[in-house]
């Protein structure tokens, strides 16, 4: 069951990755495009394929996987299907960290300042959320804490960008809040990949512990799970992935909510399978959204967060309604 699902998702990611490479305003013929990508035979086509479309497709996979996995991990730890990095302000705080690094000039002075600043913002947000709405806190505490953290991070991001001497900075508020992969480059791939990879390895290794946790905290402790250590791993893993993803692509919401929700019934609610499946599912969703923005409005930079919110927000409302009906809210 789990293995078949993972294989199916992998095939879907591969197919969408190829499609993402073939969509773009330059209107290259598929054969010509792939030949330029692999052999580098024509200068213009090669630049378009290797420097513009390839990094974009790779980033869609990385960012989607990071957000899907981070959502599934937070939901596994909090045992609450509403815990999602975008909704609870982790992405927004990462964006604030990134904007601070860029506008203070730290990011220009040191390459790693950008991802580390975004990561620090994300760590801070996860810690606040866990402190306010840890495993014993209810859904309502989680959502309210998330609203407050998101609102503050969003306001401070706007403030920093409005204070910038750069005339374009203020108009980029929408990028940091909604996210986009337009015109990213290999530089961004190298910046994000190590942090997302490290976070993914660390979190995927916790699958069995999240399985034990579904039986309740006491049962998990009796099975040898060290809760404090698990929490620390979760904080660093989620922050590392969401921080890096947000630093290069802005805050893209709802991916970590939609993907685990769709996949959960298919894996029999086992976190150890849900985690890798959600990483792949996140990649599928962001690849699809990023292809869609280029098909719907090819000449404009439609933000990814617009599409994920259109899909995700109704689902979020449905989840709140369901949680309320079960008397958990």
């Amino acid at each position, binding site marked *: 069951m789990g293995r078949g699902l993972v294989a199916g998702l992998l095939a879907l990611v591969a197919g969408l990755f190829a499609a993402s490479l073939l969509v*773009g*305003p*330059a209107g*290259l013929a598929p054969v010509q495009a792939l030949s330029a990508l692999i052999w580098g035979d024509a*200068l*213009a*086509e090669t*630049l*378009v394929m290797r*420097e*513009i*479309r390839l990094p974009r497709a790779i980033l869609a996979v990385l960012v989607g996987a990071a957000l899907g996995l981070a959502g599934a991990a937070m939901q596994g730890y909090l045992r609450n299907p509403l815990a999602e990095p975008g909704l609870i302000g982790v992405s927004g705080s990462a964006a604030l960290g990134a904007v601070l690094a*860029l*506008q203070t*000039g730290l*990011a*220009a002075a040191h390459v790693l300042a950008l991802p580390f600043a975004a990561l620090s913002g994300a760590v801070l947000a996860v810690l606040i959320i866990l402190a306010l709405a840890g495993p014993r806190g209810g859904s309502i505490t989680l959502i309210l804490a998330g609203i407050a953290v998101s609102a503050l991070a969003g306001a401070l991001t706007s403030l920093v960008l409005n204070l*910038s*001497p*750069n*005339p*374009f*900075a203020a*108009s*980029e508020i929408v*990028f940091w809040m909604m996210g986009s992969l337009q*015109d990213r*480059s*290999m*530089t961004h791939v190298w910046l994000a990949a190590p942090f997302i990879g490290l976070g993914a390895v660390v979190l995927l290794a916790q699958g069995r512990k999240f399985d034990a946790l579904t039986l309740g905290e006491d049962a998990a402790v009796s099975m040898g799970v060290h809760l404090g250590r698990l929490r620390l791993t979760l904080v660093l893993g989620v922050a590392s992935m969401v921080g890096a993803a947000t630093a290069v692509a802005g805050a893209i919401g709802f991916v970590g909510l939609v993907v685990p929700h769709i996949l959960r019934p298919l894996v029999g609610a086992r976190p150890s399978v849900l985690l890798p499946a959600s990483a792949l599912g996140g990649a599928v969703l962001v690849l699809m959204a990023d292809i869609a923005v280029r098909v719907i409005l*090819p*000449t*404009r*930079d439609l933000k990814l967060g617009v599409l994920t919110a259109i899909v995700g927000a109704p689902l979020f409302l449905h989840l709140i309604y369901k949680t309320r009906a079960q008397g958990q809210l």
Partner: protein
Amino acid sequence: MALRRASSSLAAALAIWAGAVGAGPPERVVSINLCTDQLAMMLAAPGQLVSISRISQDPNVSVMLEQALGYPINSGQGEEVFRLQPDLVLAGQFTSSYTVGLLRRLGVEVVQLPIVSSLDAIPDAIREVGHLLGQHVQAEAVIADFTADLAGLQQARDTPPRAALHYANNYTSGENSLAHEILTAAGFANIAAEAGLSGGGTLAMERLIMLMPDLVISGQPYPGASRSEEVLRHPAMRGLRDRHAGHALADAEWVCGTPAVLRAIARLADLHEGG
């Protein structure tokens, strides 16, 4: 009631004051737009121009920095401009309509000058500002110099090299724009016009690269960081410049329809010798 009476007497006082100064050339002119600043500084009699906009003292966008530093500056807000008691305010076509409306309600004469989008329209703009300031002789002298210099610079080529204008957010200028005419006058063809763009607009980086320009003219980066300007240093654009195209910077001289565009044309035309 008292308030109403006070406001109507204020309006009457303003009308008399406006009528009294309306006869001769304006004595207190305030400019609140970068491009009208430049024309006014070129044409105004000593003491006639009392304030220019803050942006004219910004070395990144001002072409007349030295002269601009000699004037008091304003930030173009209604209250601040009104306090300067101008009898003429020069504004741009896209100056905030709230500011313009407020000043007009207060009885101040505001003239909004249109955006200049061709070289031919530059003498008209100079003539209009000269007329408004009552400096006809000075304006005609500036126009004569401009027309002669432009004729000397203009060069037609059988196969002009193809240039791409590349600004932040992949913004570029197609036909019917001042930047397009600067390119053409300097003997270059504009790839944005090939792509069918008229006026300003965006041209996706992919399409720009597929058009393989011989020269990339990129916008000048501003201080502070922005994601919008990252496209200017994108590896794909660097690859294009390293392996195929020449590179030049577009700066403040490209912005306004004033004689400063002659310097932009001259520097651009010099690139022909190099390549």
